[in-house]
């Protein structure tokens, strides 16, 4: 008998718990915004920019530890710089700001 009472109490507690947020009517701030297409694009560009910057750091380490020759280093650094610059430029276009807007 006590077991049933305990269970009933647990059940009530559980229902109250999950019903709590639903008790009051929905307000404006209860709307979850979906990520927009634009946000997603910009996020991808920022990620691209960060990847290129990170790659530059790693290249530096690889060069310092003689994993890549000077020639390759110069070439690869150039390419990562271009990649970062392109991402930043595209980001600026997205945001409609000029080059001065790039952080």
């Amino acid at each position, binding site marked *: 008998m006590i077991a049933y009472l305990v269970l009933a109490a647990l059940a009530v507690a559980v229902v109250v718990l999950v019903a709590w947020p639903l008790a009051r009517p929905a307000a404006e701030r209860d709307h979850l915004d979906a990520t927009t297409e634009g946000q997603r694009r910009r996020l991808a560009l920022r990620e*691209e920019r960060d990847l290129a910057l990170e790659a530059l750091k790693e290249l530096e380490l690889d060069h310092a530890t003689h994993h890549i020759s000077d020639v390759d280093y110069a*070439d690869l650094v*150039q*390419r990562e710089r*271009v*990649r970062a610059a392109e991402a930043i430029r595209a980001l600026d276009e997205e945001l409609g700001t000029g080059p001065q807007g790039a952080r």
Partner: protein
Amino acid sequence: MSESPAATPEEPKRGLRHIRLVVALAVASILGTFAVYTAFADTSIPVLGVAQAATGYDGEDIRLEGRVTEATGDAADPQGLRFTVRDFETQETIRVVYTGSVPDAFRVGREVVIDGRLENGVLAGTPDTLVTKCPSKYEEQGTSTDPA
């Protein structure tokens, strides 16, 4: 986005075809190793119940499953452990001669698995292959941690 202007235009193309070829070769060699080995190495042995084993597997290497009905001697005996296993369903039995480690849980009534060669209806057990199967009172145990 894939090519940066700094690279010479034809170089990545050539490299690309090259890498595809190498990756394809790598996949092919892994699959090939697998296919050839499983097809030709003959590493599998049949797993048989006692009744099944009695039907024409003489002279072959098999893995036998059954329930121990009687046992004499043990690993300390010069003649080794001798026991009889019975089929799970029928009354057929096969005698087993075995030397090597005897698992802790071995005794009459246990279900066992053992590798060996069937000769004239007697199984000559391969040393150290005797394993007891899940006695029902322990869910957890089984062939799990014994040598397979």
